[in-house]
């Protein structure tokens, strides 16, 4: 409940978990970097998004990095994402959970929040030693107060479709375009559109649990859900 003396503003926390492994080199990573200003512009120009959505950017390759902690993206200097090494899903999920916990715990007590959403995108599959299921379970643990909705996007020739399905809580997609760079652009457009629509729609008792995805079938193939 609100404290008598402080304003509590509604927050829609969004965590972008982006693959920056070596396979992203070239067009895909350029497309990723090119899309961030569009997201920032949306935050700066649309009050229904900019006043509610808070964005965090987490990258992963061999390790996970919180490149931008949860913040008003309109007010930060955008990073340039760089290509790194291998692909470690476990590191991605562990770092994402840390970013969610840290970001939401930093908000004033009683802040009204939307259910956090993680947008995960990858063009590969887990290559590090050890399994990643435990880290994913920790991230999706429904008993965790901040358990997010995880939406997973796969693209490229090397993507493991079953992994993308496993990662998502309910919604996973494969990008259709033949060009990986164009696939990344469409994923980022879908991500920005979903943030916009969800921020604008206040309630939805439907099965979507308040999340509104903008993933046109022209560009994406919805994958059937898979439970762990």
């Amino acid at each position, binding site marked *: 409940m609100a404290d008598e003396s402080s304003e509590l503003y509604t927050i829609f926390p969004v965590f972008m978990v982006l693959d920056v492994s070596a396979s992203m080199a070239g067009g895909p990573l350029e497309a990723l970097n090119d899309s961030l200003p569009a997201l920032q512009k949306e935050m700066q*120009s649309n009050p229904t998004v900019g006043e509610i959505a808070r964005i965090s950017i987490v990258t992963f390759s061999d390790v996970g990095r919180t490149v931008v902690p949860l913040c008003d993206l309109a007010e930060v200097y955008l990073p340039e994402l760089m290509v790194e090494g291998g692909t470690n899903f476990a590191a991605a999920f562990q*770092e994402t959970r840390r970013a969610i916990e840290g970001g939401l715990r930093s908000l004033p007590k*009683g802040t009204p929040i939307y259910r956090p959403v993680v947008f995960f995108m990858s063009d590969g599959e887990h290559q590090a030693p050890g399994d990643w299921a435990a880290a994913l379970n920790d991230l999706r643990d429904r008993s965790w107060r901040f358990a997010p909705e995880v939406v997973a996007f796969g693209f490229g020739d090397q993507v493991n479709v079953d992994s993308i399905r496993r990662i998502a809580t309910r919604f996973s997609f494969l990008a259709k375009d033949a060009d990986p760079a164009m696939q990344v652009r469409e994923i980022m457009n879908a991500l920005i559109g979903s943030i916009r629509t*969800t921020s604008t729609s206040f309630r939805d008792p439907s099965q979507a649990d*308040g999340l509104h995805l903008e993933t046109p079938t022209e560009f994406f193939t919805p994958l059937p859900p898979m439970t762990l």
Partner: protein
Amino acid sequence: MSRFRDLRGHWADPAEHPPPDDAEHPPPDDAEHDWPLHPGGAAPARSRGAGEAPEALDHAAAPDTPAAPRATADAAGPPSAAPWEQPAGLPPAATAGPGAPRPPEADNPGPAPDEPAPGGLAPAGSAEAPPAGSAEAPAGEPTRPADPWRLHSPPTAAPTVGKVLPAPRPVLAPATAFRRSMLSLDSVFVGGFHVAAGSLVGTAHLVSGSPCQDAYDFAVSPGGRLIVAIADGLGSRPHSQVGARSFCEGAVQAGLAREELTAADLLAYAARYAESQAGAHRLAPREIGFVGAVAVFAGSRGEIARVGDVSAFALADGEFHELLTNAPDEHVNIVTDALPEQPLPAPEVRRLEAVRRVVLCTDGLATDLRNSPGVRSWLAESWEAPGDVHAMGEALRFRRRGSHDDRTAVVISVLERPVVADSPATSA
């Protein structure tokens, strides 16, 4: 929580709490001076002069902005020059305000956002943030190309709470069916009550081009009961404004026809009526989904029944006390109950005793009342005494960061005796 104390434990006999105006306006012989209405134009003056300097920005302390981003893994760069941070020599983006440079890609037609100190208020008509569609560029703003489509808006004393972005241009999507007014207002004496009500379209609808989806209605029955209905169409349903409007009409019609029906009875009837109206418009029940409440008052006693997250507050001694339960730990974008559904979700019912002023409101306003001391203060001041129709509109004109839902409130004041229309002699 203590802020929303239980009504029964807080209120005493209404005779011990005369309306605030009574001290200055002792009950006269005629009804004309019994409940003087404060006009909207005379709203409490909080406004800072347009030429005065805005309050300093303080993003470091902004409650909704976490501490400046810091890399958690990449320690290659110096701590003061992380890759996402503004390079040295450039003003931080957070200081964008009057006179400050703006991102080159920003194309907002309005002024740069500004943020008062957390919890602070700034009049919407001041330099910090113009009212929706304001045509006047605040003093100190950089000169920008004239926007021929910016709408003129008269100044307002309503506050701006927190940092807000310029209001969007209001648009209506082509082929919008079942449009509702962007603004509805009432302020009338009816039986033993004064009812002031208003419904204002939310900023989100101005952006998406969809109509206001809230609705309200009220009437006094032949037996003197006041029937009030309020509803909030679900944003995800394409024609939810039809459901909200039909629900309110159905509740009032049933309340006028059947004196014995309880608030819960009226809610159930109204939900069925709304469903029938959906059929009349060839709409599926799911397309008109909404949440709603019905309140029935007989003198100072009342009863409220609701399904969903509309709410009710008692206003007494300048404080709001929520009368219905709220689940603060639930995520704000998830609602479990809605209408019209079969079977009908069990309504939450609250009985009221010795009430003097009750506010029924939709979630857009209830959220602001729960979470914003600034809004609570403004609305308590605005509704401390019954106001005229312009005062009701002025009350809803505040802007608050993140507050983009439709706003609807019905403010019910219980009178000590009915007020009748002016006779020619008294109005002369």
